[in-house]
């Protein structure tokens, strides 16, 4: 069924449905680019362009939210692959080191524990705990098998509990 505000090149996607998940997708985009708001806005805008043009075509096989999260993830991957190869070139020709992305202001113990997780564990924890996806949906967004997703999820929870427990005992 086609919504009244469905996109011309993406009949299963409507503007209002995208607006409803905008906040969560923005949070995901933000964590994709190390909490740099300008880059996150750029990513979101590009994701919307992909949906408008039909380059990213939603076929109703998953939820719209999972699909848009995966679009953002893929855009971020391809963008940072380009950026990192440029950075490698810069490092090769200049002796001074290139500074890392800006560290967010939050520096409490939980945040440090989350940041210490391997990337995939951090991603799945974010998707399940903060973006309200199931482990299956999160695995689909990350492009891994559901079983692999579960393993990352369990290990992440275990690692977080252990770190926070250590911290609680120290204080």
């Amino acid at each position: 069924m086609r919504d009244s505000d469905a996109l011309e090149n993406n009949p299963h996607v409507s503007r209002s449905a995208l607006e409803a998940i905008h906040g969560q997708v923005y949070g995901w985009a933000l964590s994709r680019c190390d909490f740099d708001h300008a880059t996150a806005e750029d990513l979101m805008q590009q994701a919307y362009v992909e949906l408008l043009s039909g380059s990213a075509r939603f076929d109703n096989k998953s939820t719209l939210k999972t699909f848009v999260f995966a679009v953002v993830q893929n855009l971020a991957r391809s963008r940072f692959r380009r950026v990192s190869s440029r950075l490698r070139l810069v490092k090769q020709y200049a002796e001074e080191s290139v500074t890392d992305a800006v560290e967010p202001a939050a520096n409490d113990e939980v945040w440090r524990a989350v940041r210490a997780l391997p990337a995939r564990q951090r991603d799945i924890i974010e998707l399940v705990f903060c973006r309200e996806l199931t482990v299956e949906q999160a695995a689909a967004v990350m492009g891994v098998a559901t079983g692999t997703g579960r393993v990352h999820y369990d290990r992440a929870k275990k690692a977080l509990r252990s770190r926070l427990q250590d911290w609680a005992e120290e204080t």
Partner: protein
Amino acid sequence: MQDSQDTLRDAVEDAFRGAAGHRQPSFDRLWRKAEQKHRNSRRRYRWFAGTAATAAAVVIALSLQTPADQDAYIEIAELLESTYWSAPSDVLLPDREFDIYQDLPVLFESTEPAEGALL
């Protein structure tokens, strides 16, 4: 167990919320920008496609075009004027198209026997 899971979830959620800050761009603003970008790229694509199609049409038209007064068959005289074939042995002749048979000896019928045979 569920309590501990919920506590962990809340703590992680708070940590992410703190890291993200409160700044969030409005959907309308980003959507408008995306629409504008999409429109511009579509316009550019149309312009390129139009130009390419026109150029292709011109090239095809020029290649298909033949002069109206041109005959469909070959004029032998024109062909002979425009082509020249020379055999490898021609270079041995003193002049081009030299008639090598111009001084053919005239043979007369013999009526005189010579050594038992007619010449």
